C-alpha cells in the first residue's frame, strides 16, 4: 500500500502507467499494486508480464536450459511510463534483462523499478525506485517470500534461509 502511494506521488496519470511484472514473483505483486491504485485513484494501470529468460546473460554457462515463463504484453509500451515489478532484487541482472526485453517492445517514456525486497549485493549499476523492505543478507542465503499469492491484505513474511537449505528450495526460490 505504501508503494502504491509512492507511485502516485511520482506519477499523476495512472491510466498511462504500465506495470510490467517479472515472473513468477512479480505477478501477484503487480496485481496487488494495480488493485491498490484503482482503490486510491479510481484509475487502473495496464498490467503486463515479461519473462526475461531469453535475455539472461548466463545462458552460455547453464547446462540445462531454464524453463521459459509467460510473457503477455497486452498493449504497446511506447510513450508510457513503465514500472517493472519484481519481488526480490539482488544482483540487478534480471532487471537489466527486463530493460533490454522492454526496449524490444517499443520506446517507453520512462522506466521505474519496484522491488519488494532489496537484498543488496548489486552487480550492475541499477537502483530501485520503490523498495518494500531492505533485507540485509549474505550473498549465499536464500530469501523466501511467504504469502505472496496475490491476495491483497495477506501479510507478507520474509524468511531468510541459511545456505544449507539452498538445494531444497531451489525449485521455488524467487531470488536473484
Amino acid at each position, binding site marked *: 500500500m505504501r508503494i502504491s502511494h509512492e507511485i502516485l506521488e511520482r506519477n499523476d496519470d495512472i491510466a498511462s502507467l504500465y506495470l510490467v511484472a517479472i515472473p513468477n514473483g512479480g505477478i501477484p505483486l503487480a496485481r496487488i499494486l494495480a488493485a491498490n491504485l484503482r482503490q486510491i485513484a479510481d484509475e487502473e494501470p495496464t498490467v503486463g508480464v515479461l519473462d526475461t529468460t531469453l535475455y539472461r546473460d548466463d545462458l552460455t554457462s547453464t547446462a540445462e*536450459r531454464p*524453463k521459459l515463463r509467460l510473457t503477455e504484453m497486452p498493449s504497446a509500451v511506447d510513450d508510457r511510463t513503465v514500472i517493472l515489478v519484481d519481488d526480490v532484487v539482488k544482483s540487478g541482472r534480471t532487471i537489466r534483462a527486463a530493460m533490454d526485453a522492454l526496449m524490444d517492445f517499443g520506446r517507453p517514456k520512462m522506466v521505474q523499478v519496484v522491488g519488494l525486497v532489496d537484498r543488496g549485493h548489486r552487480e550492475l549499476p541499477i537502483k530501485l525506485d520503490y523498495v518494500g523492505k531492505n533485507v540485509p543478507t549474505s550473498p549465499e542465503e536464500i530469501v523466501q517470500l511467504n504469502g505472496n499469492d496475490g491476495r491483497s491484505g495477506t501479510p507478507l513474511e520474509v524468511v531468510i534461509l541459511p545456505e544449507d537449505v539452498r538445494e531444497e528450495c531451489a525449485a521455488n526460490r524467487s531470488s536473484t
Partner: protein
Amino acid sequence: MIGRDLIGIEDLERSEIERILDTAERMREVGGRVVKKVPTLRGRTVVNLFFEASTRTRVSFEIAGKRLSADVVNFSPASSSLKKSESILDTARTLDAMDPDLVVVRHEVAGVPKRIADVLAAPVVNAGDGAHEHPTQALLDLLTVRQEKGRIDGLTVTIVGDILHSRVARSNIFGFTKLGAEVRVVGPPPMIPMNVETLGVKVFTTLRDALAGSDVVMALRIQNERLAGASVPSIREYSATFGLDRAKLHYAKDDAIVMHPGPVNRGVELSHDLTDDRPSVILDQVRNGVAIRMAVLYLFAGRPPSQSALGEGS
C-alpha cells in the same frame, strides 16, 4: 534431461516431448512481436546442412535461428557429388572444424544424421532422413493438435496415405502414441508397412472405417515419383479412394481437424476447399514449425559441451 542430439521422436521420453512443446508455446509469443528477435543465441552459429532439396523446412529453421539471433549458414551440397558415405562424413567434419554450435541435417538416406552426429562435436538435429524420421515435423504437428484440442491424451489420430515411405508418419506415430493418443493408419495396401501394428497403431483398409470417431485426420503427401513404382494404379484412383473432401470428412467427428505436412497436391490428397479453409490447419502447422524449431535450437544449441566422447565415425 534432454540429450545432445535430436535424431528421432523414438528416442524421446514423453516428458522431453512435453518440454519441447511447452518451450515452443512460449516461443510463439516472440513471433507475434513487432521486433521478432531475442538475443538468446547471439554469437552462436547454426549450420543447415541439407543434402536433399527442401525449401520449407530449411526456411523454417533459418527464420527460427534468426529470431534467436544465431548466425545461420545454409549449405546444400549437390548430392550427386556426395554419393559415398565417406565423403558425406568428410563434408561434415570440414564443417565441424569451423566450430558451429548446432548442425541441422537432412538427407535422402535414413541414418545419415545419426552417422554425422557420431563424428561431430556439435549437436545434430535431424531435419528428415529417408523414410526414417522427421522429428521437428512431428513436434509441430503435436503442438498444433494440442492447441486445437487442448490435449493429446485420448484423441484418435488417423494418418492417411503412403505410410511406408513416410518419415512424417513414423515420427508422428511415435509422438502421438507416446503422448497417449490412438493412432490409426489407412492407405492402399502396398503403402502400409508390414508389421506396422508393432508400433502400436491400428491398420484400416477403408477410409470410412478409419475416419469413424477420428479427432484428427492427417493426410500425407503422395510423391509422384513413388507412384511411378506402381504402388497404386493411378493418381485419379488414389484421389477417389483416399483423397479427402468435405463429404468424406463427415465420417470423422464433427469437430475433426485436417492436417497436411505440405506441400499439398491439390485435388489429390485434399480437395481445393479443404486445403484452404477450416477445418484444415495447414498454415497453423507452418507457423508452429518456426516456434518448434526455435524451441529445439534453444534447448539443443550451444550448451556447454557434455562429457560424451566424440565417435570416430566409420
